[in-house]
């Protein structure tokens, strides 16, 4: 009989500790965590857009984007909406609690190819999380990129995340357009669904890359709106969400055609998934 302790077991999480928790909205919390192994934490490297599998042992694992940028590595940040069993348990965590982390997984953004371009971020609700990592990365390398516009929408002002950072984004040279679905007392920004505000703003597709993330229904209409504005498939990037388990392209469930969101994504250009849009 052979007893193995696998050297490289991709299913075995690293232990990590929650450093800080930020209550973003009624059902979204942000966790700042660091790996318990100090050496691994200091060597940890990732690309904006790559994801991690967070474990609460006894509840299970779920996939979240690392939404802090690689340019700021005091901690790794994840924002989690409370919707299911695992996220419910994640919301019960306190600073000092131990969790498991398998990261980085997936491919992330090809930011090298985006240098010199104008960038249009379009985010809806919790969909702002994967955009935040690339946005902060670009702010930290501001001279490499042209005009940066962020169109960020949520149901209500109380459903916007990262509100405490908006001034920093603007100071970093970002044109921030905020919108909520309907009028709220005291709300002075835009009102209307993200696709509607997009066509009102009508940014030019010239030398511009659009990066989209949000609920599937928003993505569908935003894609339609971008096409109307003249954006080509290869100019549109999206970072997708799927139910995932293994996170390493084996277990089979997060496929779009022959590609796995966990392994080949979660960032895709619309060109890569065209024809498969039915299964987003």
């Amino acid at each position: 009989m052979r007893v193995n302790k696998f050297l490289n077991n991709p299913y075995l999480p690293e232990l990590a500790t929650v450093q800080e928790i930020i209550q973003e909205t009624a059902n979204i919390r942000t966790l700042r965590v660091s790996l318990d192994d100090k050496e691994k934490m200091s060597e940890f490297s990732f690309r904006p857009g790559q994801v991690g599998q967070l474990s609460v042992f006894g509840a299970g694992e779920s996939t979240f984007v690392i939404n802090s940028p690689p340019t700021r590595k005091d901690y790794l940040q994840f924002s989690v909406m409370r919707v299911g069993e695992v996220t419910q348990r994640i919301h019960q965590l306190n600073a000092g609690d131990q969790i498991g982390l398998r990261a980085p997984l997936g491919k992330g953004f090809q930011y090298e190819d985006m240098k010199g371009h104008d960038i249009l971020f379009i985010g809806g609700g919790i969909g702002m999380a994967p955009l935040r990592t690339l946005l902060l990365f670009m702010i930290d390398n501001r001279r490499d990129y042209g005009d940066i516009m962020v169109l960020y929408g949520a149901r209500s002002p109380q459903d916007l995340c990262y509100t405490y950072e908006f001034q920093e984004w603007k100071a970093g040279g970002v044109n921030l357009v905020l919108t909520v679905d309907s009028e709220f007392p005291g709300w002075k920004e835009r009102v209307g669904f993200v696709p509607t505000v997009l066509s009102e703003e009508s940014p030019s597709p010239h030398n511009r890359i659009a990066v989209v993330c949000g609920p599937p229904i928003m993505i569908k209409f935003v894609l339609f709106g971008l096409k109307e504005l003249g954006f080509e498939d290869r100019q549109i990037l999206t970072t997708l969400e799927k139910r995932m388990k293994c996170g390493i392209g084996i277990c089979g469930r997060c496929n779009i055609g022959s590609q796995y969101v966990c392994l080949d994504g979660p960032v895709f250009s619309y060109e890569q998934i065209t024809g498969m849009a039915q299964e987003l």
Partner: protein
Amino acid sequence: MAGKIFIAIDRLTLALDKLSAKIDLWIPASLQTDNRELTEFVPYHAGMVPILDRQTTLPPKKILLPQVETLLRFEHRKDPQNPLKVSVSLDDKSEVRPALVFGARPCDVKGFLTLDRVFTNGPYVDPYYLERRRNTLFATLVCLQADGTCFCSSVGSGPADTEGSDFRVIPVDGGYVVDALTQKAQSLIDSLGDTPTQHQEAQARQVVEEASQHRVGDLDLTGSAEAFRKRFANDDYWQEMTAQCLSCGICTYVCPTCYCFTITDEIENMRGERLRSWDSCMFYQYTLEASGHNPRPSKLNRYRNRAGHKFSYIPEKYDGLIGCCGCGRCIRSCPVSIDIRQIVGRLKENACESE
């Protein structure tokens, strides 16, 4: 002659006894008391008689990919100095024993070639599967029992295919001629039987020759990826093909190449395990997200994904390899007789009709 032996029928159990003293042995048999028709691969015990005259109801898939297995164990410990602080420890030790699967068929063994690519050939290697794969040998029958649902020749294999096998077991008059095909097989074969006579060898050659010529399945289902892509968005086609489907998932359960799994935690008090279990893409819950969104909400989407996975996505990813071994189990077991041969075969017919 080295590497070739003859086992007489009445000495088969003796040979299996000897083998099982050296290695964990799996044989096709029935564990049912009420229905001996239901067969599967089971661990051999002295006195068992293998059922070698027909394909097993269930494939040997579970031998390399158990229906449920432990990926890791975890334990929470309270710090006695600070009871609010709980630490976690993890352990991924696993045990693998060398094993031999006796009496698999070429389709059963070919099925593992799909799993091999998925589990050991991607950017990440699955260490649980790999360890078992490295320690498991296959003694494969030359198959003379194809029935009306078999179609191994339609997917590029055949009843005498030896790919993935360590031994070839050839039925001849009064017993079996067994060929060792790999180094590992060589070391196990010597003590199992007698040197075959010239007549037995000649007969074995003839059986293999005839089986190699025999075509099982009329259709050619290779190279269907292009046709699948063209028909992907044709909902009418998929609706017609899957209207009867009950989403019961038996096709994935009996399939040698279906490997999709889920990972779940089980915990009791402070200790628990992370488990991997077979899952099925035929189930609504398989892709259901916590938000309520489901990218494959209908059986049309789900069956199309299953057919596409085997005949388009896997070939696209793994140099043309088809994710189907043609064993016919999904057709045989389907309560409403959905026939994957017809569904994939018709993709290529009139493929130009749809844009």
